[in-house]
């Protein structure tokens, strides 16, 4: 009898501890503060997560492949610089208002008028409502990645904003604490420094799976020690990508799963091509050959198989138009570095280089130290300088004040190479945080122009491929590694749109579309 009781108790316990099927519990994750809910002001990762869940866009990147698929739009036509979209007729905002062409027009106008966040993607775009469900965009200048740019145009409920805008023209106060989208998740509370709470939108036009989280708590600004303890206690589900590698490693050793989001960006050591000795191409080539790429990747490795970076094969990250194949993986070559240095017009013994790192990104100090030792192997002196972001972005506006080497992580904000490369290398973009190289090369400019105006994918591929070759030859930048975002997560969650390449969007943050996640109910 007693044995039976124990057996029954054991069985019950076993049932209780077996993870139940994915059934839509609460999902808890964190990001760096502050969570910007206004889609016209959104600019970083936390904002993207909010944007992609509370709002929808006309198109979405195709999951697991190149190109875009209709989302709020049912189809579109391109006629030169005019893009005409037919909207779905079954979409309603969370307020109950139906989606109309005037909402799309309002969203573009609002974004460009406020001039913040991703609005620069829509400069010179005029939107017109052709009828209630047709909208057309006319571009001032031809811009073939326009469809890609639309993933950064969340559609706002015009009527709701107009009703709540008070005496502001564009209702910024209302939209900074309330959602006004069609998205799969409805904001129920928002404190930009603490957390945003969202619940499933049962009337979402595509429906939301049962297993998707019912409630999401997106917390802001948690410390690494806090996240670690919360996950260990089962009180947190997905940690942000900004945890130090040691903490992610420790979490993984404690049994957390690791999601890797293959990014559309990279880590760069940018050389100021206007400052001696970096105005000499052979000097630049020497330093690019001297950088220890393998060690840099080992420094950000989480486990033997997972790393926050993969080897770069050239100037364009793997997976984008014009990227080189794996045979072109960047590696250190000291012999070649010495050869280049011998042909450089400057005497290495008289060179002293400034290697800067951004104070807010402590990881970069390690790369600076690594590079300093690589330079020392070449017999070149260098000095490491720490720059707060605000100071750095001010210094780069003047080439004379820009350090020899600047370390930057850059992403293609729409997933298209144009948004990564044009801002970095076009001569008209020089002197911004993305372009401390101050590159001025007519050939590079021509390829970049071709890349944004060519109408066929093949022509764009060719343009970017040539650009890649040209950039590798000019060596304005040391292409450190292609970036991957690593998220430690509890075993309650399944997020294929982040971790499964065949379902990934290829756009930072979009994998956090909660409607595509599964959570165990507890």
């Amino acid at each position, binding site marked *: 009898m007693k044995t039976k009781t124990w057996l029954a108790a054991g069985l019950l316990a076993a049932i209780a501890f077996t993870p139940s099927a994915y059934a839509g519990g609460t999902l808890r994750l964190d990001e760096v503060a502050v969570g910007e809910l206004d889609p016209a002001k959104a600019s970083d990762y936390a904002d993207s997560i909010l944007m992609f869940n509370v709002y929808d866009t006309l198109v979405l990147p195709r999951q697991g492949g190149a190109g875009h698929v209709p989302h709020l739009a049912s189809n579109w036509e391109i006629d030169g610089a005019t893009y005409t979209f037919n909207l779905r007729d079954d979409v309603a905002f969370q307020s109950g208002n139906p989606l109309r062409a005037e909402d799309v027009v309002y969203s573009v106008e609002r974004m460009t008028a406020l001039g913040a966040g991703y609005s*620069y993607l829509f400069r010179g775009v005029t939107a017109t409502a052709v009828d209630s469900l047709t909208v057309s965009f006319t571009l001032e200048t031809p811009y073939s990645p326009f469809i890609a740019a639309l993933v950064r145009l969340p559609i706002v409920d015009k009527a709701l904003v107009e009703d709540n805008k008070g005496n502001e023209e564009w209702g910024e106060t209302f939209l900074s604490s309330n959602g006004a989208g069609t998205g799969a998740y409805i904001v129920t509370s928002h404190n930009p*420094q603490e957390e945003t709470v969202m619940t499933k939108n049962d009337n979402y036009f595509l429906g939301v799976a049962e297993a998707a989280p019912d409630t999401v708590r997106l917390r802001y600004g948690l410390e690494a020690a806090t996240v670690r303890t*919360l996950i260990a206690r089962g009180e947190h589900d997905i940690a942000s990508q900004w945890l130090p590698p040691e903490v992610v490693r420790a979490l993984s050793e404690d049994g957390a799963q690791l999601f890797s989001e293959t990014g559309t960006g990279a880590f760069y050591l940018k050389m100021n091509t206007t400052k001696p000795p970096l105005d000499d191409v052979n000097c630049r080539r020497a330093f690019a050959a001297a950088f220890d790429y393998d060690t840099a990747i080992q420094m950000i490795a989480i486990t033997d198989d997972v790393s926050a970076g993969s080897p770069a094969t050239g100037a364009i990250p793997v997976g984008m138009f014009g990227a080189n194949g794996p045979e072109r993986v960047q590696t250190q070559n000291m012999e070649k570095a010495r050869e280049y240095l011998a042909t450089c017009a400057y005497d290495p013994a008289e060179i002293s280089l400034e290697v800067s790192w951004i104070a807010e990104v402590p990881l970069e100090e390690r790369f600076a130290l690594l590079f300093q030792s690589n330079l020392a192997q070449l017999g070149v002196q260098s000095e490491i300088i720490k720059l707060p972001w605000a100071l750095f972005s*001010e210094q780069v506006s003047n080439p004379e004040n820009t350090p020899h080497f600047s370390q930057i992580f850059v992403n293609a904000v729409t997933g298209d190479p144009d948004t990564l490369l044009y801002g970095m290398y076009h001569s008209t973009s020089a002197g911004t*945080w993305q372009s401390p190289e101050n590159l001025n090369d007519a050939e590079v400019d021509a390829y970049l122009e071709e890349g944004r105006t060519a109408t066929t994918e093949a022509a764009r591929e060719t343009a970017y491929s040539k650009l890649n070759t040209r950039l590798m030859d000019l060596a304005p930048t040391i292409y450190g590694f292609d970036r991957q975002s690593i998220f430690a997560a509890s075993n309650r969650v399944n997020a294929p749109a982040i971790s499964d390449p065949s379902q990934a969007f290829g756009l930072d943050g979009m994998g956090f579309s909660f409607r595509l996640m599964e959570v165990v109910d507890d």
Partner: protein
Amino acid sequence: MRPGSFLGQHILNSPLIRLLLQRLGISFIVLIGVSMLIFVIARVIPGDPARIALGPNAAPEQVASLRAAMHLDDPIVVQYGFFVLDVTRGDLGKSLYTNRPVTVDIVQFLPATLELVFAAGIIMVGLGLPLGILAARYHGRWPDNAVRIFALLTVSAPSFVWAVILMLLFAFYLPLFPIAGRISDIYEIDRVTGFMTIDTLIAGNLVAFQDAFSHLVLPAVALSLSGIGQAARLTRANMVETYEKPFIEMAQAYGFFPSRIARIYVFKPSLIPSLTIIGLDFAAMLGNAFLVEAVFAWPGLSRYGVAVILRKDLNAIMGTVLVIAITFLIVNILVDLLIAFLNPRIRYSTRVDA
């Protein structure tokens, strides 16, 4: 003479009121000085606030128009003039960090920090003073040594180190206390005062109160530890000094109980210097709380203050610093009044002057 003016005269003649008015006057001048100083310093930090707010890719003309709207291109004296004008209307401007009016942010974040600081202050006084008394009473013996070691430990390690240690001990290895936030997700408490422990009581929800209280324990203890050590050391040192005064020898000669001597004749005069430091410590915690707030995900003003400085959010920097300065001044006035009340020499000398 009309009774009203007599009453007014009488109140003005009261030494404590005179002291209060005098302190308020000085505080007002200090506040103006602080606001000018911070106004200038905030503008000297590198970086263009308009550029930071609009993002790195904003068009130059849009950055210029935001600069113009914020009067950033005007001479600094004119900018300060606009600031003072807005403050007199109760408008601290808009935060570029949270995109909300700074006053809304302060109203939302200040109570959380005040609750934390009050709790830490109570622990600091409630533990620091008795430990100091104990050490002085058993001067040179083991309780004295124990308190000294404890005080040294707490003073030498900053509060965020204690925050992490306490979290590891009492939340990770022994899961006794919650780690993050002010209350568990399951409770929906209407905001009345912004103090979670008080609001849960107003809502009549004792279980939620207990939950909010348990959230408060670790951050408050972490924040108070260095203050406890300081209060204990000061109280002890002052009391040891007072023990050597002739009037104590006299009390001992009369055969009073040692505990009575300690409590009444030694403690009270020794409290005055400790009180000044405790008051300063208490106000300083408002600014120092930010790392503890960060570790325990406490949505307070201190954390907000650091975030806005990093983003060069000028309006929010001014708002936060002014609130902290005002609290500092209020606490100082209270301490001065308390000291005047405790110290008969100050009390009576003021009365004679009057």
